[in-house]
């Protein structure tokens, strides 16, 4: 099996770029490279990852300035053409600012930065990012963010639900969607969602931090393995 090509975008202030690069190359064994935000070349990537961090210091608003980076033009074209894009944490925020996903992020409900393992319920296994789920639909993956309180208007939420776009929701360890498990106050406990076409996923939790058992959880593996499976088999979900 030939290796897939993963491009990890580096904005000024990205700080999970090295982590994402490490797991893709060393844990999943894929051909991985950085994409500099000032360039105009996606280097024939099969999948683009917008990593976590504080692009442009999160000044103005998380993701608001990164949206104007030169490379975002090519990223938009790639996404509109059906290319796989995964935005993690700050990457999710950038996807919202770019309009590739609906909604916006507010400050966490307790107004503090939150870093801890949370439980997620996987709600949709018919996406390029979740096709490798066997049984367990509850994942333990860390979050680390200040602005992860997902918000969208009720019309938008209806639309998202009608289209089955919710992929991950904050849950308790049994997978129940409760108010208590909703660590940051997100509407409908939303932790991650895809666009209508299913090729763009944004998620606040960090699957790259849950890819090696030494670090306490392997549950992020299902996401990367799904992407690899999808790209290798060119699956269709529509």
């Amino acid at each position: 099996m030939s290796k897939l090509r993963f491009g990890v975008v580096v904005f000024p202030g990205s700080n999970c770029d090295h982590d994402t690069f490490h797991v893709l190359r060393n844990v999943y064994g894929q051909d991985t490279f950085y994409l500099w935000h000032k360039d105009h070349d996606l280097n024939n990537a099969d999948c683009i990852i917008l990593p976590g961090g504080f692009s442009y210091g999160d000044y103005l608003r998380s993701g608001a300035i990164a949206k104007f980076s030169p490379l975002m033009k090519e990223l938009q074209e790639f996404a509109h053409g059906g290319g796989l894009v995964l935005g993690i944490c700050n990457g999710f925020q950038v996807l919202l600012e770019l309009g590739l996903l609906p909604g916006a992020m507010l400050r966490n409900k307790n107004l503090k930065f939150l870093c801890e393992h949370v439980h997620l319920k996987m709600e949709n296994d018919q996406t390029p990012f979740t096709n490798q789920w066997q049984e367990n639909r509850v994942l333990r993956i860390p979050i680390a963010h200040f602005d992860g309180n997902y918000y969208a208007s009720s019309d938008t939420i209806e639309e998202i639900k009608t289209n089955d776009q919710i992929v991950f929701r904050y849950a308790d360890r049994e997978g129940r969607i409760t108010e208590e498990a909703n660590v940051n106050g997100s509407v409908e406990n939303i932790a991650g969602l895809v666009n209508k076409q299913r090729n763009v996923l944004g998620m606040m939790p960090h699957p790259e931090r849950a890819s090696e058992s030494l670090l306490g959880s392997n549950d992020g593996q299902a996401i990367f393995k799904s992407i690899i499976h999808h790209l290798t088999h060119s699956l269709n979900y529509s």
Partner: protein
Amino acid sequence: MIHKKILEEHKLTEEEYERIVELIGKEPNITELGIFSLMWSEHCSYKSSKAHLQKLPVTGENVIQGPGENAGIIDIGEGLAAVFKIESHNHPSFIEPYQGAATGVGGILRDIFTMGARPIALMDALRFGPLSLPKNKTITEGIISGIAGYGNCMGVPTVGGDVYFNECYSLNPLVNAFCLGICEKDKIFYAKAEGEGNPVLYVGSKTGRDGIHGATMASAEFGEDLEEKRPNVQVGDPFKEKLLLEACLEVMNKNLIIGIQDMGAAGLTCSTTEMASNAKSGIEINLDLIPQREEGMTPYEIMLSESQERMLLVAKKETVKEVQEIYAKWDLDAVIVGQVTSDQRLKVIFEGITVVDIPVQAVVDMCPLYHRESKVPAYLESQTKLDPIPPPEDYNGTLKKLLSSPTIADKQWVFRQYDHMVQINTALLPGADASVLRLKNKKFALAMTLDGNSLYTYLDPKTGGKIAVAEACRNLACVGAHPVGVTNCLNFGNPEKPEIMWQFQEAIEGIAAACRTFNIPVTGGNVSFYNETEGLSIHPTPVLGIVGLLRDVDKSCSPGFKNTGDVIFLIGKNKDEIGGSEYLKFIWDMEKGQPPQIDLQTEKQVHKVCIEAIAKGLLHSAHDISEGGLAVCIAECAFLGDNRLGCTLHLKDRIRSDALLFGESQSRIIVTAKPENKDALVKIAQGQNVPIEEIGTTGGKNMTVYHNQKKIIDLPVQKSYTTWKQAIPDHFKAR
């Protein structure tokens, strides 16, 4: 002759002034005087402490760089070096908690990456006043948010640290920031301005009027004029520093520069003079070329500014262009502001006129050193005497109350505000005895911890100093690591008071003795004097940062109970010592008695047993006994396990139950093992002549303790867990 008042404002004595005149052969102008006042401040010169710091062991086979540079460096094997240091930012954090703490983190990060190392971990030792006072809550929240705000944005995990609460920190919180970085040991950079004619470059944020006199401020007590000092605190920009970090490491990786120094305390003044001094060269800079963010700044202000996120570097002539291109890629300006000279002088030009012309050595090396008078403090006699106290009537209630003491209670409220996982190396998360960081693609790992119980040092500074080192090493032993290097942050009151000087001397002697016994070098650190507000001094608070190595990252150990039916052992021996305990402080409101005594050799043997047992895979958990004693230790073992398993203990010591449960005798570790590993464990202990005793088993939902067959504790784990878990958050809920 300069006016007396000006000297006072610069915190220089008349004798010091006369020495300056003699050294530079002229009356200094105001800018030159400002430079001397900064470099001769206690903060920069260590003039009161140097004589004593020399007692610390600083050498060892693995030492690449000892004290005196931006950070210490230890060889950790396989071509890698660990670069680490701890530094205080107490005064600024009191005046402006968020920015004070944030820039403390920013400063220590720069110290590490200035040497060519990528920072991989931060930790903070924090000391606050009681949370019952609103002012202390504001300070606590501000400081923690500031640390989080800076470290999280930088993408360097804050993996641990310790937090204590005591009245003595009410008007004087302590923020000691530790950072550790990794580099290849043949790629270390130093602060040196070598090569006549080589260009001197200024990189990073523009210079403003912030932080002028920060170092001098940190060298005096606070009075009532506190609010006025707020403008002395610098404002941090972690995003700019992140760019600086990436750009500097790129330039260093490509080997394009000769020397580099960050501009922390004393800004341009310190970086220019130290870089020249280290290389026995001189520097000439033109202030008109310095990027400035405010108009009309005087040479005095530019030289003394402590604006953050700035670096000074010396490049080779032929590489300047490439250096500038790399900084431009990261949206940073690298401006040539001067050149290296050979005359060993600092020359500063402003609007075409030479405004500073002084010998570098005079500024850096010729500050008078003081052997300040010392005297045993009067409080000791009464405080170390402990009148008999009645035993508690309700041991369950007492333990529960102790678990709600903020010093003992769960600190996740603090740690969850820090990104402690970024860089994906954190193998043992905050809350364990020590943090463990894997090194990618290596079998061995790093462990690190910060420790310092100031109640012990208050009652007996020498013993307190020994215990601070011993406990840190014990924490490392509990995760399976042996110590390899030490950095320390010594927080004390006004050294001009003989009682404070005595505390300082004694504490250093204790630290030195312990470091010698454990055979670990002190590679640097920081002294913070003048921790006094309105005449009240903090308890003497030495904080020890100790770095350890773990041979096999897959064989680390954590404190929580794992399986039902495991045997609980005590390594070490229970003693009748209740003085200086958190029990006396929190339950009886007494800071009294003799702190626990310590035999360093025994302590060392205890660590050996624990490390060997972990390496052989015999242990399921290990946790050291510290604040709150045996009872709190056992409770924490129950709380920190995934299943919150209970346990039953049978204690047989002929010691009063309160001293047995809550006394803080040293050199003790609680471990658990499978029944079939009992003999192997006991054999290891016997081999080191260390007492070991089987005291109970894990299992059930309650924590039950019998003392000489009498049940004295029986608490549901889940309920007491909630008490311990909620104690700190509850203080912040009521707002």
